[in-house]
């Protein structure tokens, strides 16, 4: 039914009023002549309104005289009449064409670049690489050859084993798969010891090959022998040299000291903020929502969502650390933790954290942070034999 109404709208139809005495005869006559009428409504004994197609109306003309009816057009509906009404407004038609062309034109450009599937490689790096290859906002899509770009990405970026560039609408989506590094080949023929790479207390030991020299709970120093590759057992004849393998998990400690002058000011947000919203691109932007920024000092945060740019102005005041010791402690702890974590190798598990504060003459705060971690301290050391 909907398509029927749509079709009638597209080809256009007329609303007619028929006046006469024998209206039933008129209806029957249209039917037998193959003229299609719909929405027939009798107003009173001598008048009737109905809808008819333009084609049908032409056929009707000769017919009306036979039944002595007067036919008048009440309304013209549908697209052909609307077009006819605007026939002299050429710029309207030009505007429509320009609209379609712009829509089509803009859809053949890339407007956003996305990267999916990265694990250790940062997406920004890949976006930068794509930009160098021509895939960036504003790039003309037909000029991009995804096949060569994919190959270039794989060649230029180490650690990527597969890449696929999809241009979906105005988005360019790069899907990558990072390659898995093959495990290091263990040279079992060279005899070696495992020594401690740093001080610690042995927490757990798994010896796969070789002779354990220390045991769980032992305190070891850096460079101390943990697993020996020289096996000299009473059951065997002579001395055997092996490539010792194993995991030596030890508790290790890291320490960091930081200080903060309490007489120094810091910037603190007061909680008041003002937002200015823009629509636009880069520097070409038009504000559509504006709040007055009347702060002496402020920080600006810019959020971008497609063509919508929001600038948030936070009012800022300068406060001395002295006035808020609690906050100073927290800040110092954060800084210290960040610094100490740089020293902790990847793969180590932090199991404990302690912070000690010291105040010196009420103008300096000193924080000492201790971190206890569990990590593998084993290190290969080849045995030199004559």
């Amino acid at each position, binding site marked *: 039914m909907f398509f029927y109404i749509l079709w009638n709208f597209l080809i256009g139809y007329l609303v007619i009023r028929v006046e006469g005495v024998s209206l039933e005869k008129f209806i029957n006559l249209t039917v037998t002549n193959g003229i299609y*009428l719909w929405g027939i*409504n009798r107003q009173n004994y001598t008048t009737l309104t109905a809808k008819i197609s333009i084609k049908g109306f032409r056929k009707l003309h000769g017919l009306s005289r036979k039944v002595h009816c007067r036919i008048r057009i009440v309304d013209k509906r549908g697209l052909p009449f609307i077009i006819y009404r605007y026939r002299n407004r050429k710029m309207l038609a030009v505007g429509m064409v320009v609209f379609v062309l712009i829509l089509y034109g803009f859809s053949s450009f890339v407007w956003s670049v996305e990267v999916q599937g990265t694990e250790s490689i940062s997406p920004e790096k890949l976006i930068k690489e794509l930009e160098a290859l021509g895939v960036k906002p504003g790039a003309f899509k037909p000029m991009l050859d995804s096949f060569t770009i994919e190959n270039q990405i794989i060649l230029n970026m180490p650690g990527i084993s597969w890449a696929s560039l999809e241009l979906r609408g105005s988005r360019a989506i790069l899907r990558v798969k990072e390659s898995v590094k093959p495990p290091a080949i263990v040279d079992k023929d060279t005899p070696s010891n495992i020594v401690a790479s740093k001080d610690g207390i042995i927490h757990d030991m798994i010896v796969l090959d070789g002779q354990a020299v220390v045991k769980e709970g032992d305190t070891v120093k850096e460079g101390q022998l943990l697993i020996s590759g020289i096996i000299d057992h009473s059951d065997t004849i002579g001395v055997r040299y092996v490539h010792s393998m194993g995991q030596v998990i030890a508790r290790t400690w890291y320490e960091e000291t930081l200080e903060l002058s309490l007489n120094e000011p810091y910037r603190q947000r007061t909680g008041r903020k003002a937002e200015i919203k823009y629509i636009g691109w880069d520097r070409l932007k038009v504000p559509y929502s504006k709040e007055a920024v009347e702060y002496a000092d402020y920080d600006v945060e810019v959020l971008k969502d497609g063509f919508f740019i929001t600038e948030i102005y936070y009012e800022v005041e300068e406060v001395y650390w002295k006035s808020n010791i609690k906050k100073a402690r927290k800040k110092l702890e954060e800084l210290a933790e960040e610094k100490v974590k740089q020293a902790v190798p990847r793969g180590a598990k932090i199991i404990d954290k302690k912070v000690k504060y010291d105040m010196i003459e009420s103008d300096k705060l000193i924080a000492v942070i201790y971190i206890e971690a569990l990590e593998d301290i084993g290190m290969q050391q080849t045995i030199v034999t004559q």
Partner: protein
Amino acid sequence: MRRKRLEDMKSAVSELFELPREIMLNLPKISMIGSNQMLVENHKGVIEYTPQRIRVNSSIGVIRIQGTEMQLKNIAADDIMITGEIKTVEFI
């Protein structure tokens, strides 16, 4: 008499082969949706049309439909759709 026998046979045959009777016997097919819409297929023209009363000719006689605010929603060579408040349908 002969004609009556032919009609009976046609009826029996259409029943046996499950053929649509309205085509075999040239009968009007009337379908209604509630009391607001009525479709008369296989008609033979409109005799009278007013918003209160519609008379449609068919092979078995005149079908008289009475109601209020009735409209001929569409009309084609072999079907009529009537919309509005239908109260009675009679075969006379």
